[in-house]
């Protein structure tokens, strides 16, 4: 709360102005904040969101691209590998006559050559149209085996070539079979059949791609049985934990989820003319690492920017509205000042006019009464003579009282010739205090000066200033009981090119209702003897000298008068 207090400006906290004004500044502030926030944050948020999705898209493409590339490359390699071996079988079956192939020795030399030039061949056999293996070379005794009812034999006899799934078979290691058929001229056909070591050969082709530790490359058949061992999705000849993807003649990339809920990217390709499907499974999480860090950065960037922008907007708006308010207050003060000056001038003119008109009849009354008194004194005693003279004396005394007022009133707005001289304000005020020294010591009133080093002298009118300070200090004395204190401080107001004298007392203060009227003529709060002209004359003089006077007061605590006087040249 204290922090809020510090950043919330006065107009928000409800200091000073009227309720209507406060509401106005608050609304201004709200408008300013919401508008600037809208125009600055909206594009930022939109850009960030768009960027987020674009980045995600690009990253996805970047993620998919290498997988699809490798899938496609590996598919080609695998196809080439199988194609090559089928071609070798084709070459042999077409090149060698049937008689050569059923000859065990010759067949053995063929197998040896093939092992040397291609690799991966384990054995070789020739089966006649009845499914009877006529010759066989390899690590087992399979000559004479009957394949007549085997599916593969039917397939090769129909399609002309055959590639099997991987199986263990008699040999008890993973291998697969390829076979090609040759029509004999006029009488049936025969088949050349070879076994290929699946594990070493296929693994060799697909392994180099294994780039990331989280990526798994393996081959399944169309039933989903693993044809090679995999890292995470089962052992060879087990059912793969990844479902068989739909058929496509081209390499594809799919997104999917494993049973454990981990999402992955699957690159796959159906290998033509074989039951094999190449599978490349990349764990999405591992691939997403980069993306996640980008997203993380992006979110922090957004949050940071928003906070920064909001701070700037808040401070900017506070500053701006404060400036507007200051300008308003200044303008109001100026208007008030002008109004007040005009009011005082009209009152001054009225007072002078009235005083002047009254002064002449007053002079006549004075003479008439005087004459009556003269005549009465010259006449011999007559009844009531003493009483008459006494009354005339009272009449004359009251005329004098009236004339004192008219003279002071006439002085209120009189034409003044200002004589400029260099004045040390401290000395001048000390002189004025000299008149009141006795009263001060009698009433135990202390006077303190607070004057900064090097306080300048000013050009002004000595007599007028004496009158000003005498009036103010006199009032201060009148307001205080025994043991009061008067503080006189001076300072320079460089912006206004003025010197400022403040005279504070610890008197009874002036009530809020009285405060606006104290410079008006005939306004007095003194119960006895106050005519109410002192401060109005003071006001007039200070204005004439090119300065101004203001007052602050708290009932029970005291009153402070502040006199601004031009520091350099006076303007009359």
């Amino acid at each position, binding site marked *: 709360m204290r922090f809020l207090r510090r950043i919330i400006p006065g107009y928000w906290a409800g200091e000073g102005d009227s309720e209507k004004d406060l509401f106005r500044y608050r609304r201004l502030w709200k408008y300013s904040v919401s508008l600037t926030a809208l125009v600055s944050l909206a594009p930022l948020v939109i850009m960030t969101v768009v960027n987020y999705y674009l980045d995600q898209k690009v990253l996805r493409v970047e993620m998919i691209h290498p997988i699809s590339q490798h899938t496609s490359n590996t598919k080609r390699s695998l196809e080439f590998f199988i194609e090559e071996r089928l071609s070798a079988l084709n070459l042999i079956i077409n090149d060698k006559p049937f008689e050569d192939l059923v000859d065990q020795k010759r067949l053995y030399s063929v197998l040896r050559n093939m092992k040397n030039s291609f690799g991966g061949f384990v054995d070789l056999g020739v089966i006649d149209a009845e499914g009877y293996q006529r010759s066989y070379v390899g690590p087992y005794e399979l000559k004479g085996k009957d394949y007549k009812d085997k599916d593969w034999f039917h397939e090769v006899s129909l399609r002309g070539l055959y590639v099997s799934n991987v199986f263990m078979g008699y040999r008890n290691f993973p291998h697969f079979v390829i076979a090609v058929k040759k029509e004999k001229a006029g009488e049936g056909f025969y088949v050349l059949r070879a076994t290929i070591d699946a594990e070493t050969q296929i693994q060799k082709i697909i392994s180099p791609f294994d780039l990331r530790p989280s990526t798994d490359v393996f081959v399944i058949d169309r039933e989903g049985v693993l044809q090679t061992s995999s890292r995470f999705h089962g052992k060879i000849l087990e059912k793969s934990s990844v479902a068989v993807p739909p058929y496509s003649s081209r390499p594809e990339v799919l997104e999917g989820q494993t049973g454990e809920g981990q999402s992955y990217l699957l690159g796959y390709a159906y290998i033509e003319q074989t039951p094999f499907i190449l599978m490349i499974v990349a764990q999405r999480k591992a691939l997403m690492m980069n993306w996640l860090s980008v997203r993380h950065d992006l979110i922090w960037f957004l949050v940071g920017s928003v906070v920064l922008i909001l701070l700037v907007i808040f401070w900017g708006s506070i500053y701006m509205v404060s400036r507007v308010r200051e300008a308003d207050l200044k303008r109001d003060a100026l208007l008030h000042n002008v109004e007040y000056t005009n009011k005082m001038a009209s009152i001054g003119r009225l007072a002078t006019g009235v*005083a*002047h008109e009254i*002064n*002449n009849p*007053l*002079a*006549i*009354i*004075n*003479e*008439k009464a*005087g*004459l009556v008194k*003269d*005549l009465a004194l*010259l006449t011999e005693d007559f009844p009531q003579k003493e009483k008459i003279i006494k009354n005339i004396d009272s009449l004359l005394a009251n*005329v*004098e009282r009236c*004339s004192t007022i*008219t*003279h*002071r*009133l*006439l*002085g*209120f707005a*009189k*034409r*003044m*010739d200002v004589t400029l001289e260099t004045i040390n304000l401290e000395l001048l005020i000390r002189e004025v205090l000299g008149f009141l020294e006795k009263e001060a010591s009698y009433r135990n009133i202390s006077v303190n000066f607070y004057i900064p080093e090097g306080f300048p002298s000013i050009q002004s009118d000595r007599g007028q200033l004496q009158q000003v300070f005498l009036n103010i200090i006199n009032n201060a004395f009148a307001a205080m009981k025994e043991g009061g204190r008067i503080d006189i401080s001076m300072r320079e107001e460089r912006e206004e090119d003025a010197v400022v004298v403040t005279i504070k007392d610890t008197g009874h203060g002036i009530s809020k209702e009285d405060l606006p009227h104290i410079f008006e003529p005939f306004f007095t709060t003194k119960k006895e003897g106050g005519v109410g002209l002192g401060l109005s004359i003071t006001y007039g003089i200070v204005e004439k000298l090119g300065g101004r006077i203001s007052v602050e007061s708290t009932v029970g605590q005291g009153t402070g008068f502040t006199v601004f006087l031009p520091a350099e040249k006076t303007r009359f």
Partner: protein
Amino acid sequence: MAPLRVLLIDDEEELVSTLAERLMLRGIEVEVGTSGAYAIECVQEKKFDVVVLDMKMPGIGGLEVMRRIRREQPGIKFILMTGRGSLEEGEEGMQEGAFAYLLKPINIEDLMEKMMEAVRV
């Protein structure tokens, strides 16, 4: 001692006549007038020791009347009466050569004193 001869000028007829009567009761020879023009005319015909002049009058003002008379007869003393509250106007008259100035309403004793002083000098 011959009585003091005084010319009393103010645009308020009632004021001058009353004041004159009071001065005469005090043994002073008084001539009264209500305009500056009359004053200038009057001093040429008669001889006066003191002229008591209101400063603010319609027509020729007090200061101007004093200037003109003093040009002819520098010996005549002037006492000015001013209705203004400020003392500056009176001071201005003093600078122009008046002997004294008094604020209206006038205290008759002050006036008597100033007139006596004027002829003594």
